[in-house]
């Protein structure tokens, strides 16, 4: 799992970095990008299932963030602010991309080559992927952020602009729907 905020630096370091970015320091911009790009790209890819889209969403996220960094008041962590931009860009982008599901299906086929499937049965995994794809976007987003990428409900709430309780409720509904969709495989996961 990707876990929570990138570690290895203090809040003070990050504030200094942001102050430098504000005055147009290109090295600081790159450093800030390096700190956060993995997490943004991973989330974009998980939700889009498409490298081109994930790159587009990631790029747009950082472009917007650098453009609006004057408006970042530092009340929350920079990551929280950045992931709010990222989720807005990704979700709006996904709504606009009509071909998303078709491309996703194609990429699922391609991605299956050379990927270790671990312990789970291939049919069950495929069933799970399809069931996740079929979730309404608001449930899928919370499911991917929490169960796949390891965001906390507080982080998800801040990114989506909803209370943590709403995030919990959406995750619960997402799991219930997955459970229902995967009922035919009940014997396999129970074993």
């Amino acid at each position: 799992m990707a876990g929570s905020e990138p570690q290895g630096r203090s809040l003070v370091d990050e504030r200094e970095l942001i102050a430098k970015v504000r005055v147009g320091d290109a090295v600081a911009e790159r450093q800030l990008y390096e700190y956060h790009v993995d997490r943004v790209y991973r989330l974009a890819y998980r939700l889009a299932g498409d490298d081109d889209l994930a790159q587009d969403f990631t790029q747009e996220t950082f472009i917007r963030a650098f453009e609006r960094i004057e408006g970042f008041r530092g009340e929350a962590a920079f990551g929280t602010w950045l992931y709010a931009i990222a989720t807005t860009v990704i979700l709006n982008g996904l709504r606009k991309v009509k071909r998303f599901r078709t491309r996703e299906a194609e990429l699922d086929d391609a991605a299956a080559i050379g990927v270790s499937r671990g312990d789970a049965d291939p049919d069950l995994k495929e069933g799970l992927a399809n069931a996740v794809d079929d979730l309404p976007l608001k449930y899928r987003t919370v499911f991917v952020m929490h169960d796949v990428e390891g965001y906390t409900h507080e982080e998800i709430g801040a990114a989506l602009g909803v209370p943590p309780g709403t995030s919990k409720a959406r995750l619960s509904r997402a799991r219930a729907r997955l459970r229902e969709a995967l009922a035919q495989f009940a014997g396999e996961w129970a074993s």
Partner: protein
Amino acid sequence: MSDDRFEDFVQRAAQEYHRPPEVPREQMWARIAAARAERKLARASQPSPQQRWVRWGLAAAAVLAVGIGIGRTIGPRPTPRPSGMQMAEGPAGAGEQVPAAFEIAARDHLRHVETFLTVFQYEAREGLAVEETAGLARNLLMNTRLLMDSPAGRDVRMAALLDDVEVMLAQIASYADSPTPAELRLIDMGLEQRGLLLKLRAAVPAENSAFRAQGVL
């Protein structure tokens, strides 16, 4: 099966869901830098509000020149009448063929008016600086009146549209160069109530004028 077992399974198996490849950091950074540079350049080349209004002034002056040309070639303005009366009294009505040059000049003018009003309405609603509008509205108003007196004004539908445009432009022209918020609201309400922008857009289809004008004028 228990909920815990299912959740364990889902969390484990879901790691394979759209498993991301290695993050293409350099590739994305290069694109971000390029896109930002491009946007900065685009912003730098965008005209300031003053420059925009100067352009508007030039466009209006060009239309005015056409209008004066039209005005010099025509006589007094015939009053538009319902089609029944037109048949009895002379060659004025919706079915009448307006000379192509006048029709094109009228449509070009309406296109300018539509753009002017669209920009005006947007800026008024967004609370942006609305400056020098009265002067521009006066220029457009003058051209409108010239067109009303031209053969283009003999077409009943065109005449009705020009009448609406005249009233709206006269209202804008009557205010100072920097209208107050209350005045802006009144103009906006007038635009909405008349449905003038919709009428203008219907009268001036997107493919109009530029290509045809090249061939005729």
